[in-house]
């Protein structure tokens, strides 16, 4: 029973800096970094120490409180450093490449004979498990739970996002293997949700063992959270797992080859980036291969991920575990005179969801946006603006207020179990009062996990 959903709410932020659909050849990164902070709430227990030599697929650390969840090295080489921060918290594990790519032998798995538990154990032991995220709470899935369904989105609608049709073109077998494996992990269905506005690549449209749904509308149509809400919503006590499409392909590839090969396509985007195209690289890879010499000016922000939800990094940083995109945009750390560029200016360079700038009359114009907040933080004043970009049957302002005030009953009633911080990214973007809504939702989810799960 496939479903078709049409969204009326949402917002496409049209930015300058799309990537050209050309792929640069793979260059072996000099180092990779796996950051425990990419896996929210996880405390690592190290299994290697600096100087150890590892193969691609060897386990670097495991979750201290859930030891079955393991995290593998994407490359072969030596562990250069375990970077620690305050209170000796582990910030990242850096592995230097040996220039080759030697894989540890985790073995293949035959999906025709394997049952759900065997697949689960295979994923856990091989370090593939962290690709599976659970809703509610938006953390790495708890292997002890059984999800009522699994969601994979076949497109990314966020600003400057990679085109999955291009990224996964020709990966039909790997992707299908991944989907089939996922379908054995749930009693329910695997939902693959396609973009209803344009035909999809055969890798998606001919997928089997899944329910194919279509969703059309503006961003966040491509967010799994939106898709779950409209197709198979989460109630209290239920679990849904989600996997990024490119990660499904990585899972499938390992099952077929037996190699922990995390090669994937990442697009370089953003108004300050040059040579904007797709780069073949590895999870956690040094960004220098991609961005060296490929951005204009010094005063730029380098983001691993998209501009709405990505992580702030720098020219010597590494790609985030879940990211398919690198974005470079200008920093906005300069004063803007109020009559020429500030709050009372005509504002032909400002993109806004409100109609307070003339640019709302130019729906096709693309904008160069910097990281300036364009105003100071205030209390909530304007009402109705969050609702316009939040296509859920959830009252966003009321939920955010419940989150800010730690009102657990309120949050449960208003739908905290259905949302992830990324679902509020657009709300945060449009907020006139410049409130960091994603952070508030993250804190609220942490509270819910502590008190109610």
């Amino acid at each position, binding site marked *: 029973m496939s479903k078709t959903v049409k969204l009326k709410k949402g917002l496409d932020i049209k930015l300058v800096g799309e990537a050209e659909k050309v792929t640069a050849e793979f260059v072996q990164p000099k180092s990779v970094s796996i950051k425990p902070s990419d896996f929210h709430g996880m405390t690592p227990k190290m299994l290697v120490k600096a100087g150890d030599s590892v193969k691609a697929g060897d386990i670097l650390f495991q979750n201290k409180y859930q030891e079955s969840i393991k995290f593998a090295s994407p490359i072969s080489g030596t562990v250069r450093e375990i970077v620690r921060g305050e209170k000796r918290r582990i910030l990242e594990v850096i592995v230097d490449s040996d220039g080759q790519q030697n894989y540890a032998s985790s073995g293949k798995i035959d999906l025709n004979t394997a049952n759900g538990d065997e697949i689960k154990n295979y994923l856990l032991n091989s370090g593939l498990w962290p690709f599976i995220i659970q809703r509610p709470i938006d953390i790495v899935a708890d292997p002890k739970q059984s999800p009522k369904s699994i969601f994979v989105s076949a497109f990314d609608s966020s600003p400057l996002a990679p085109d999955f049709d291009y990224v996964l073109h020709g990966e039909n077998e790997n992707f299908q293997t991944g989907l089939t494996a996922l379908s054995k992990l749930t009693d329910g269905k695997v939902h693959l949700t396609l973009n209803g506005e344009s035909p999809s690549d055969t890798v998606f449209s001919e997928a089997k063992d899944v329910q194919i749904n279509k969703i059309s509308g503006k961003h966040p149509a491509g967010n799994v959270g939106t898709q779950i809400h409209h197709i198979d919503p989460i109630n209290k006590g239920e679990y849904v797992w989600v996997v990024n499409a490119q990660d499904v392909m990585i899972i499938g590839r390992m099952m077929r080859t037996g190699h922990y090969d995390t090669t994937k396509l990442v697009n370089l985007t953003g108004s300050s980036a040059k040579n904007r195209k797709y780069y073949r690289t590895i999870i956690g890879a040094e960004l220098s291969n991609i961005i060296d010499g490929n951005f204009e000016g010094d005063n730029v922000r380098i983001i691993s991920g998209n501009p709405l939800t990505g992580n702030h990094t720098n020219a010597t940083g590494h790609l985030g575990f879940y990211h398919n995109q690198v974005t470079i945009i200008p920093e906005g750390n300069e*004063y*803007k005179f109020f009559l020429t560029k*500030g709050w009372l200016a005509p504002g032909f360079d400002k993109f806004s969801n409100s109609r307070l700038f003339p640019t709302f009359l130019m729906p096709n114009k693309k904008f160069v946006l910097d990281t300036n907040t364009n105003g100071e933080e205030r209390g909530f*004043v304007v009402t109705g603006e969050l609702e316009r970009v939040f296509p859920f049957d*959830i009252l966003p*302002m009321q939920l955010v207020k419940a989150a800010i005030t730690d009102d657990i009953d309120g949050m449960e009633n208003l739908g905290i179990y259905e949302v992830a911080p990324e679902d509020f990214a657009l709300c945060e973007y*449009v907020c*006139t009062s410049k409130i960091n809504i994603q952070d508030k939702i993250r804190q609220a989810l942490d509270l819910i996990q502590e008190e109610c799960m």
Partner: protein
Amino acid sequence: MKFLEKYLHKMEPNFVKGGKWEKWNPLFETMATFAFTPKLVTEKGSHIRDGVDLKRTMITVVFALIPCLIFGIYNTGHWGMVAEAGSRDLPYWADMGTKFGIGLAAVLPIVVVSYAVGLGVEFLFGMLRGHSLHEGFLVSGMLIPLTMPADVPLWMVAVATVFAVVIGKEIFGGTGMNIVNVALTARAFLFFAYPTSMSGDKVWMAGTEASVDGFTGSTALGDLASFMSDKPVFENLQTFTNNYSLSDSFFGMIPGSIGETSTFACLIGAVILVATGVGSLRIIASFFAGGLLMGGILNLVGGNEYLDLPAYYHLVIGGFAFGAVFMATDPVTAAQTSMGKLWYGLFGGIVAILIRVLNPAFPEGVMLAILFMNVMAPIIDHYVVQGNIKRRLKRLKTA
């Protein structure tokens, strides 16, 4: 503007923590952020942010008020001349320069006092709390004068503004936290604190010190309310409508508070607010609908001249349009859910006309109706939110 930017850079260290003028930081910051959008960058979450901020939102409301202000100045001048001449027969569109002059002399001081006193109080609280001035008063400071009779003593404006900002807003935590509309709090304060100056039938009117000359500067509402008493000003509705024609009332060529008389000017403001999305069309439209509905019901009941006043007349006289467009739409004090906004506006309109017609002590019901609905808005929202929660629970049962 580089020199100004450089100067601000140079001065900034004096005002930060530990600087020699540290406690004046809110004042400095307000000035600096007025002239320059600060160089704040995103730290958490979304790296890019919408171009809009509260300053732009608020200044748009002030722009939307300008037609009301300009017309109010002219109208005040006109009725000032009428009062002086002691005759209502002066042509409206003559002596425009003089009328503007008289009007400006009456209105400008009220605007200045309102802003000066209000901003002063806001600064004081900003310094106590250590934050810069929040933008809410940009609008309140303009709304307060426009709701005042033109001959209000300036000290009363000052006292009312202090009361409104402190009791109406700051004790709740400032902009965005208040329960009732700040400008209406000022108006209500004068209404109840100085009843002898603004009592009964003279509320919402431009007296322009008229009684001195023996001219009763009563308003349409005052005259209408007298239908409910033993001594009506007019014999019947016919003589009333002869005096206050529908077009005069719509365009605002009648006595009243400074900014309220012209429904036309209010509608220009409404167009600006709705087009930019700052004001809620739902509230404005449902407020008018509520007034029309209640007026219609009273027409059906009938029985005396006031009850028989055509329902649409209610929308163009008094402060109805001004209240609907600029007061009821205040997003902080209105209902916040989109369904709630419809009910809030509808009941606001109904209650306004109900008070206006049936309560002889209050010839103008709009102010009290909106304040009442401000208090009721959280309850309306509560039921809308409960509706959402129930609908979501139902999903669980059917699933």
